[in-house]
Each structure stands twice: as C-alpha cells, then as structure tokens.
C-alpha cells in the first residue's frame, strides 16, 4: 500500500503555547486513522496544519508525493483533500443541495454546475439527506448539519477525508448510523483521518490510532494496543500507579 499522507516533524505554537511538537507519521492509502487525545491536545490544530488553514512553523507535509506545507487551503481542496468542521459551518442562506454543490464545483474534479447538481443528489442520498435537499441549510438540526458537512466534503471526490468530531453531540442511534456511513466511505477507497471523543466508535472503526497530549504523540498502534497503553490511561485518567507510589513512599 502506498503512502497518501506523510507528516514530518510538524511543530506549531500559538504565542507561548506549544500546540504541536514534532508530530510525525505516515498514513497508508485506504486506512482509517483515529486521532484521539484529551481536550486541547492539538488534534484540530493538526487538521488545520494538514489542510493549510494554519500552516505549521516547522516540518513538512507531503500529500500524494507533493509538498503542501505552505499551500493555501483552497489548493488542498483542489488536490483532493476535504474536511468537516468540529463546529459546523453551513452556508445558511443556500439550500442543502447548493451547499453540497459548492463542494463538488470547487473540489478535485472542478465540476460544472449541472454535473455538480447531479453529484450533490447522489451524495445527499448516500448520507441520507435527500428529503432535505431543497431546504435552507440553516434550518437543519445539528445531526443533519453534521451530515451536510460530510456530504459537502464527499462531493468534492476527495482522496483524503479529515473528519473532525462528526459524532459529537449525536445520540446513540445517530452515532450508529454515522459510524456505518464512515465505514461505507472507506469502502469507496477514501482514506480517512478522524478526530473523535466517542471511544467505542473510534475503537471500532479505526485501523490505527494516534494519541496526542499537549501537542505530542504519546502513543500509536492498533485499537487494542492503545486501550492498554499506560501512557494513554495516564493522559486520560491520571497516573494509574500513583496510588501504589504514594503507598510505597508512606
């Protein structure tokens, strides 16, 4: 399997806050990579660095054998990288179909309006938003807006899809439906990185997981390895050996 995305020694800070430090990994084509970590660990910042919203200060990002580190975010979209936002960003006064058409028109395939309209209907069917196609995007509820984010990203026919907390705020049946959708997307051959807090879901769908804490990679491996990794447990729950250590000192 070839590498679709290569992150090399990427660092980024905001003032005195080190948001990312020496993040390095390769992502093989066709995988689902889970990106987890406590709040403020730098997950969304890493997404912003990967797709050019905030370019990193150090390091290189290689996407499909081309360096994209300092390209503008719209160039990334044209090259086949799409993302969803943690805080949904619908184009409120446009219809759901038009929202998706924007993704199709200006994504990798640079479609005409007619072609984009066709693609939009297809993608809306896939994510289950067809009945809402003519509604204004602003009138959707949160779960539907999350699906709209996904539909817009998919309509651009990406090679790589960055999903930022698509499950947050959804109820358990919605989570189940969305998880199925994510697996279906991979079936189409699209590589996925997903940031997620819903552990059960991320453990189920990910081929591999990377854990970030204070901007550093503290662990990497299969879901089983991650679940039993002492550093991960420490990052989430505090030091598991802390009680024993205190007892010994006492």
């Amino acid at each position: 399997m070839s590498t679709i995305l290569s992150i090399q020694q990427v660092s980024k800070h905001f003032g005195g806050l080190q948001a990312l430090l020496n993040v390095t990994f390769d992502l093989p084509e066709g995988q689902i990579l889970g990106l987890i970590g406590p709040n403020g660990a730098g997950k969304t910042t890493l997404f912003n660095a990967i797709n050019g919203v905030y370019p990193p200060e150090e390091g290189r990002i290689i996407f499909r054998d081309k360096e994209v580190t300092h390209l503008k975010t719209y160039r990334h979209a044209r090259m086949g990288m799409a993302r969803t936002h943690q805080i949904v960003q619908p184009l409120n006064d446009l219809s759901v179909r038009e929202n998706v058409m924007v993704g199709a028109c200006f994504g990798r395939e640079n479609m005409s309006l007619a072609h984009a309209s066709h693609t939009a209907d297809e993608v809306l069917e896939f994510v289950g938003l067809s009945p809402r196609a003519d509604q204004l995007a602003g009138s959707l509820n949160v779960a539907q807006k999350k699906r709209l984010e996904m539909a817009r990203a998919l309509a651009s026919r990406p090679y790589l899809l960055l999903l930022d907390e698509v499950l947050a705020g959804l109820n358990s049946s919605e989570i189940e439906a969305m998880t199925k959708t994510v697996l279906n997307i991979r079936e189409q051959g699209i590589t996925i990185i997903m940031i997620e807090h819903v552990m059960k879901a991320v453990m189920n769908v990910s081929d591999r997981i990377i854990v970030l804490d204070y901007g550093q990679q503290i662990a990497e491996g299969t879901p089983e390895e991650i679940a039993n990794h002492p550093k991960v447990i420490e990052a989430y729950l505090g030091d598991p050996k802390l009680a024993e250590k205190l007892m010994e000192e006492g």
Partner: protein
Amino acid sequence: MKRGHRWLGILLPLLVVAGLLLYPVITDNESNRETSFTILKAIALASSLNILLGYTGYVSFGHIVFYGFGGYVGIYVVNELGWSIWAGLLVGGLASGLLAFLLGKAILRLRGAYFALATIGVNEAMKAFANNFDLFGGPIGMVLNFSVYKPYGGAAQALSMTFFILAGLTFAALIISHLVRTSKFGLSLQAIRENEDAAEVMGVVTPDAKTWAYVLSAIIPGMVGVLFFFKNGHVEPPLAFPLHASIELLVMVMLGGQGTVLGPILGAFAYQGMRGYLVTSDFFKDIQLSVSGVLLLLIVLFIPAGAVGWFRHRIPSLRRVLA
C-alpha cells in the same frame, strides 16, 4: 437552480426596464424621459453594486467612486482627445474595472466594517486627487465643448441618444447580474457571502473570486458615469464623488432585496420615487437624506432581506419568478 426555470427569473426585470424605455417614447415627452433616465441610472448602478453587496456580501460605502472615476476618464478622452462617445464609454468602463482590480488586490483582504471603511477612504482620496489633478481640471473640473455633440446631430439629438445608450447599459447590467447569479462563479460568491472560511476550505479561490466580483461591479458604473457627464455637459469633483450617492445606492439595494436580480430594480424605483416626492415637498426638501437614513435603519432592523427576500420567504411558490 434547476434548469428550464433559468430564464424565468430575468423576465420580470427585463420587462420593467423595457417599460421604462418605452414610457417616454410612447408619451413623446422630454420630462418623462428625464424621469426614466434617473430611474434607469439608479437601476444600473444598484444592480452593479448588488454583485458585490448582494452576492458576495461585501459592503461598499464608496461604490460611486467607479462612477466618478470612469466618468472623468471617459470625459477626458471625449473632450480633450476628441474620441467618440463610444470609445469614451469603453475607456471609462475599462478604467473603472482596472481601478477595481488594483483596489481589490489591496483592500479585499479586509472583512466586514474594515472593508466598508476602506471604501469610504478610497472615495474621499479619489475626490482629493481629482481636486488636485490639473489634467482633469482640478477643482473646476471639465466643461464639454459644444462641438463634441456635433457628430451626433447636435446637443438635442445627443441627449436623446444618451437615453437609449443608458437603457442598453441597464439591460447589460441586468443580464450580467442574472448570469452571475446563475453561474458557478456566482455560487462561489454566495459561498463567500455565507461563510468565507468554509468556502475557502471547500476550494473556492476566494481572493480571485472577490477581485473579479469587484471588477464586474465597477465596469457598468464607470460607463454610466461617462454617459451622465456627457449628457450633463460638465464634470467636477463633488458631482463625480458624492459620498451620499453611495449610501443611497446601498439603501436601494437593501430596500429591494440584496442578492436578487429584481431587488435592486424595485429598490431603485421605490427610492427614486420617494426622493422625487421628498425634494419637491416643502417640509422634506432640506432633510430628504435623513429620511433615507431612517429608511436604511428600518430596513436593517425589520426586513434585512429586503422586499424581494421577504416575499420569497413568505410565499415559496414565488421563488421561481422572483429571482
């Protein structure tokens, strides 16, 4: 945006302009022609501003600068260099487009109130420039030689000709507005209006799209400026760069409904009608601008989508017709 209905939305706007064109021809009355001229001019300017304000969501408080600058350049080539009015129109339009292109590169990276403030600055700077630029006659401006009207059969003939050219420009402005609205380019502008950051992430090359929207919204005003000052017989800085005219254009677009083809037409019609009443009324004639200020306030507070937007929202079946 479904096919088939694509041309339905432009029907009503074209009919309104055709009516304004035929009204003085049928009544054969010069005073009616002046009334029509004023309204057509307002429609052409407001529809052009709408490309930036309504479709792209950038508020320009100084859009009249393109009218003034284009007018100055066009009158210069017609009066001083002896070119024809056709060449003058072309040069004036291109000059305004070029000015918008250069300005756009500089100030379109500003958003919201900062952009609006910058556009006021540009208008005032241009007025100061014209006041001090000897080639354009400085504070006195330029007075057209009577001989420039000769090739068109004298002044009276030329005046009547400007009316028909203006109607042509207004038709052009509406067709441009409609084409932008229904095109892929227009979709990118609307995406920018709704959420510029999200549009960028989806692949809209926002700096280019905004610049071309600005250029497109500047060309027709430049040409209208040339035409107006050609008819007027002279051009001077306060006539070419009146800040209040920029604000009146904003009121027209917002009153009728920003982001629609029909909105600026209704707005221009209603505003010019109201203004005609106000300036002739004893009570309002000195405070007519404050009435438009109050009107703008009321629109922003109660019907931010404008008249057309309000109707589209209330009666969805009208959406196809009211584009």
